[in-house]
């Protein structure tokens, strides 16, 4: 097995007494696409900043590319491509200039930077925007430019902190497509998200994080198999009847979950379960059978929804 490019052991980050990251252990193999899935405040960004060698850990072991970020910050960072949660593109410079300037920070010769800048603008589908002002770009374009900027040093590992948060569905799909290309090129991706569909699309393997701790680890399919059923039956009876109906539904499927606005019945066969429930004289206002998702895994693990 190849050496892992990231090893975290009981990684802790405290702000005062508060542990934002409370003992994370994981490894990332080269070429792998690894995700941290968790709600807001779970400690994802804090973890990313430690992996990115810009934030010192409070305790635990951390090795990036075989090096300790405490001692080898600049060396490690020379091999990373970082896409932070909040864009920090230089709004005083034009689109292409942002790439030129950033490439220079790595000590790359101007000629190399200029060549890569043009290639990356192409990759980011921004070739015709090179001379535009950054502020004139849409949210999705800014995000793509930030990703292009992160690639200027041909990084070994790419860190993406919530790459598509705040984007509209179309912009997200364009971005996913770009990230998929990187994955195909064999890049190592580490990404955080609180979107289950994003995690399912992009991650080979992920950890579910809550309150700075790992709740579960595995591939999306493994996690769903382990912590959820194949299908989910979503029933709405109207919020005032939820509780009452839930008691009547006790014992349906493998498990039920009562949310404020609906009831989820976990089962291998949703249609069959729905027929049984109707036969028992319960008639939901609406019903829906869908496949289990990471959202259900998270609900099972924490009793809470991923997006509040």
């Amino acid at each position, binding site marked *: 097995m190849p050496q892992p490019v990231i090893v975290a052991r009981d990684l802790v980050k405290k702000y005062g007494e508060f542990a934002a990251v409370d003992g994370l252990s994981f490894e990332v193999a080269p070429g792998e696409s690894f995700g941290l899935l968790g709600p807001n405040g779970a400690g994802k960004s804090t973890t990313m900043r430690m992996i990115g060698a810009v934030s010192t850990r409070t305790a635990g072991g951390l090795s990036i590319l075989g090096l300790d970020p405490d001692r080898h910050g600049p060396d490690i960072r*020379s091999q990373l491509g970082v896409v932070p949660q909040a864009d920090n593109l230089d709004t005083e410079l034009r689109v292409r200039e942002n790439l030129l300037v950033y490439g220079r920070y790595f000590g790359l010769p101007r000629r190399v930077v200029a060549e890569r800048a043009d290639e990356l603008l192409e990759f980011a589908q921004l070739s015709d925007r090179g001379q535009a002002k950054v502020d004139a770009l849409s949210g999705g374009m800014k995000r793509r430019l930030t990703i292009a900027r992160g690639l200027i040093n041909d990084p070994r590992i790419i860190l993406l902190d919530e790459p598509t948060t705040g984007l509209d569905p179309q912009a997200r799909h364009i971005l996913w497509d770009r990230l998929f290309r990187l994955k195909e090129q064999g890049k190592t991706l580490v990404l955080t998200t609180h979107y289950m569909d994003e995690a399912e699309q992009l991650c080979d393997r992920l950890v579910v994080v809550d309150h700075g701790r790992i709740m579960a680890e595995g591939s999306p399919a493994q996690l769903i198999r382990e912590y959820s059923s194949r299908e989910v039956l979503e029933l709405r009876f109207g919020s005032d009847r939820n509780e009452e109906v839930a008691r009547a539904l006790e014992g349906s499927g493998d498990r039920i979950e009562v949310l404020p606005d609906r009831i989820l019945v976990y089962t291998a066969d949703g249609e069959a379960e729905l027929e049984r429930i109707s036969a028992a004289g319960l008639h939901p206002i609406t019903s829906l059978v869908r496949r289990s998702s990471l959202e259900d895994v998270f609900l099972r693990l924490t009793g809470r929804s991923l997006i509040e």
Partner: protein
Amino acid sequence: MSGSESEAPYRDRSATDDATTDDARRAFEGGIRPRRFGAWYVAEHRFRVMWSYAQTILVTGFGEPFIYLYAMGVGLATLVDRNLSLEAGGVGYLVFVAPALLCSAALTTAVIEFSYPVLLGYKWNPTFTGMHSGPISPGQIVDGLVISVVVRLAATVAIYFGFMLLFGAVPSAAGWLAVPIATLTGMAFGTLLMAYASTIREDSGQLAMVQRLVVLPLTLFSGTFFPLSQLPWFLQWIGWISPLWHGTELTRVVTFGYAEPVWLTVLHVVVLIAMTVVGWAWARRIAVRRLAA
């Protein structure tokens, strides 16, 4: 100028620091140039930004010295020279006031270059965070800013000095030393301001206050337009702690052989260098605390 990263209290290093892998070797290689030249890359960024408002820089760079030297040195001088006998070693008012104008220009430029870009870089448009997620260390970001401002100041001051020559405000042959002195004067105040600006997390007009309560009084009461000795004794301390006073007096020594004790001349140099070093070092510390928390 190398990027040293701070050590934190206790660590598990058993799994870490296997510096023998290909990845590690590649990382060390990638770190060489940024560690050595990172500050210059940051300066390069600043120059590119300055270039985007080069027109403004050029217009003020050439317009200001002309207007000030003409108004103060020529216009006002006719009045002053007729009515006042200055303790200025028998030179005309233009020769007396030109070093002060020169040093004030350096100070003003330093104030601009060390306030707005610092607030911008940490907060409004956090480009410093961006540099730091690359291989640039916090200290190098500060160093790069310092390099860029030194260049900007030296250029501004050199143009100003050119106008002083044209106006006949530099009788002494050693006058060209005014260029490094005025640059140093700008840096002495500028680096301290940079450090202060680095501490600002919530902008509530602090920099405008500095402009009004610090820069303006300094400009007026630093032996600039009249000798410090003309101030009442209880205001003279302003001069002694003012980089502008030390810079201006030192410039006067070189441009027209202003007579003062040697120890005082030495003191001017020491104070200006000390302020620069303190401000610079302080700003570096804050950068580490703010970026690498």
